[in-house]
């Protein structure tokens, strides 16, 4: 008996609850980090090789030394490997972010960029905390397509300065580079074709002593590991005023591209990701980048696709990409310096081709015009402002507008005279809100000579104040004509106006969507 009593007490030993948690944690750790070691490392290497030219190119876009983008890519990749919510996704310095910093760097200098990067990180952590990522559901497919297309166009356009007013040799080299990058995978997929292009072009330009611009001409490359530094800026409101607008846009664009990329990787690998953790992870990565002399970054669509394509699935692929990147730079910086810009341009043109959604051009004709317009407007606004946030905002607003317009069409008003022409009953079916309120008001015949008007709205939805005031106006007008007005079912109809509705589905509401 004594023993049974004891066992009852011991039955709640801490390990009973602790061990399974610990065990599932270990299991998760193994699954996310160490279940795909060989492929992850190989993919990490491929990605690192592809990251170097991109990070350099994006630094040039932002108007900073290549060092800044390379440090950023290293920091962000390493940190996000631990902190991110989407294993196997690659984050680093990106074009989308670089485009947003141009003015800040030009007007205020590098130190302000670091500060803005840190602030971006803080804002992203907050955004992750309050689950701002859920707003992504308002970003329609057309807007996403517009986003990537605009990004591709901007990356392409950023290469143009390197191709305008340059020696003839540059065109030859860029074309040769493009040829190698595009053609080599048809022959062999063992070595990264961009690497081959870069190595060959560099070798040729050194051997023949061709006088073209090289990466070294664009500014400093990393020569040491990044060091911790606090941005040298006055800590006051004025500074905040300068960096805050940049940080907000950077936060928005960074999260947008990261969440889009996460969805792409989710689809590619048929697995799920933790979007809130990804938002916060991006924030942590940017804070680290800012303190280590890097610029703000986010997830990269192209690189993540390359990673998955090369077999990268786990967090190790991201981590190794970052580490290889820095190692390669430290060992080969003298060679990296001599890479002709033409080779870099070729790589980036290919990146922009890979980023662009070519299918969206082919389907322009088959998709509904409204979604094509949304896509095109997103692209147009982005390209003209160089700001993806504005492009996306216009796209989202426009798709909301189109949606309202379409739903507004779901409104049918029928009428029938009763009681030997003394009474007319209007039956309203469908959605009444700001976009359809006018049509609602116009559907009544106020000139009819009638005793009583009955308006049955029990099978309609009144979504907002505009709808109710439109009804008020209709009632008033009939009264002015001397008719009695009865409104039937207004309570049911206006139940949708309560902001927290949800289950006010009425009988027959679904057949409103069917042709009547």
């Amino acid at each position: 008996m004594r023993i049974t009593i004891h066992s009852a007490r011991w039955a709640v030993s801490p390990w009973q609850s602790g061990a399974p948690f610990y065990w599932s944690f270990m299991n998760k750790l193994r699954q996310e980090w160490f279940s795909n070691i060989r492929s992850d490392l190989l993919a990490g290497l491929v990605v690192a090789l592809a990251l170097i030219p991109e990070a350099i190119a994006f630094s040039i876009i932002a108007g900073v030394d290549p060092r800044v983008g390379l440090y950023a890519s290293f920091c962000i990749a390493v940190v996000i490997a631990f902190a991110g919510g989407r294993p196997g996704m690659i984050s680093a310095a990106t074009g989308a972010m670089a485009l947003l910093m141009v003015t800040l760097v030009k007007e205020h200098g590098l130190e302000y960029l670091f500060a803005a990067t840190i602030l971006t990180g803080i804002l992203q952590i907050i955004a992750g905390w309050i689950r701002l990522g859920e707003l992504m559901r308002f970003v329609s497919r057309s807007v996403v397509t517009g986003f990537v297309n605009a990004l591709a166009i901007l990356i392409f356009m950023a290469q143009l300065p390197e191709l305008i007013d340059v020696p003839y040799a540059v065109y030859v080299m860029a074309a040769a580079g493009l040829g190698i990058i595009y053609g080599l995978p048809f022959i062999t997929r063992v070595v990264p074709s961009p690497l081959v292009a870069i190595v060959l072009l560099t070798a040729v330009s050194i051997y023949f002593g061709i006088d073209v611009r090289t990466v070294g001409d664009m500014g400093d490359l990393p020569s040491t590991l990044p060091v911790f530094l606090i941005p040298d800026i006055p800590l006051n409101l004025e500074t905040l005023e300068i960096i805050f607008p940049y940080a907000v846009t950077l936060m928005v664009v960074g999260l947008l591209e990261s969440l889009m990329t996460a969805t792409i990787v989710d689809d590619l690998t048929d697995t799920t990701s933790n979007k809130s953790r990804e938002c916060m992870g991006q924030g942590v990565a940017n804070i680290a980048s800012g303190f280590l002399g890097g610029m703000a970054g986010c997830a990269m669509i192209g690189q993540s696709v390359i990673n998955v394509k090369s077999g990268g699935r786990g967090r190790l692929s991201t981590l190794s990409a970052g580490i290889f990147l820095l190692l390669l730079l430290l060992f080969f910086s003298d060679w990296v310096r001599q890479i002709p810009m033409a080779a870099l341009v070729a790589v980036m043109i290919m990146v922009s081709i890979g980023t662009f959604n070519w299918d969206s051009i082919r389907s322009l004709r088959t998709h509904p015009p409204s979604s094509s317009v949304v896509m095109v407007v997103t692209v147009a606004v982005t390209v003209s402002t160089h700001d993806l946030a504005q492009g996306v905002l216009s796209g989202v607003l426009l798709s909301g507008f189109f949606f309202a317009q379409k739903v507004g069409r779901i409104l049918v008003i029928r009428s029938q005279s009763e009681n030997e022409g003394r009474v007319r009953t209007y039956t309203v079916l469908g959605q009444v809100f700001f976009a359809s309120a006018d049509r609602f008001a116009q559907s009544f015949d106020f000139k009819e000579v009638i005793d009583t008007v009955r308006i049955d709205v029990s099978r309609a939805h009144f979504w907002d104040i505009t709808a109710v005031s439109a009804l008020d106006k209709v009632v008033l007008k009939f009264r002015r004509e001397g008719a009695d007005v009865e409104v039937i079912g207004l309570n049911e109809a206006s139940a949708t106006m309560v902001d927290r509705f949800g289950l006010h589905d009425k009988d027959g509401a679904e057949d409103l969507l069917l042709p009547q």
Partner: protein
Amino acid sequence: MKQPKKVLACVDQSPYADYVADYSAWVAQKFNLPLELLHIIDRHQETATSDDHSGAIGFDAQENLLNRLAEEEGERTRATREQGRIFLNDLKKRCEHHQGLSVDVRQRYGQLLETLDEQQQDVALYVLGRRGKSADQSQRDLGRHVESISRKIRRPILTVANTFAEPKNVLVAYDGKRMTRKCVSLLAGNAALTDLPVHVVMSGKQNGEADKHLEWASSTLAKSGFEVETAYLPGDPEQQIPQAIADREIDMLVMGAYSRSPLKSLFLGSKTNELLRASKVPTVTVHL
């Protein structure tokens, strides 16, 4: 414990599967429980291999990759599905030699641990092979899943080796602590097993309590109609218990499992693992 429902035999396509099936059929018949043969297809979505190191993205890179991956995975899954079905049906035939045994087969996608965990409610006893498909490639003499499963699953688990002999007796490795006392109570609660003589063996450092503990075990079991024999073997349990198994020609070992936390066993080692490694007989581990 919720209503136990079935004996769940976890099989993979390794030679161990046959013995897992044999033992689970024996157990299921003994307890008169339905038997389910479960084959888990882990699609290993966290892993990938690729020969493509081109690092190049061209026109429609993302769409092409998505289509390619979907196609590859679909093909792989279809192949494994069919293969698994045939394999399971062969095993089912093997089990159906036993009279009046209801055998069901099931294939599930997922990871081993999660899938087994989800089933806990409906399972009375799990049966595993002590090693699995990767046994030939790895040098381990105990499969890597055994410990993680045993720690997670709060049901008795029968771990079998690659022979089958109908058990004629049982040895309980006993230390008087909570987990092994549960083993004894569990055994005592199963009238279906009373035809197996039980040896309760205690080992380890000499302490005054040993007799009292053994007496409790023996009386508990005897009360339920078991034929009990107790022994105290001073010395190292990892050596003494296997020795006792050999000396007494024991067919089945019952023991409490993993009372040490994973962290502790990282430093001190796990007695359970050592015993599982050392004993060549099928073992029921109890970690409730």
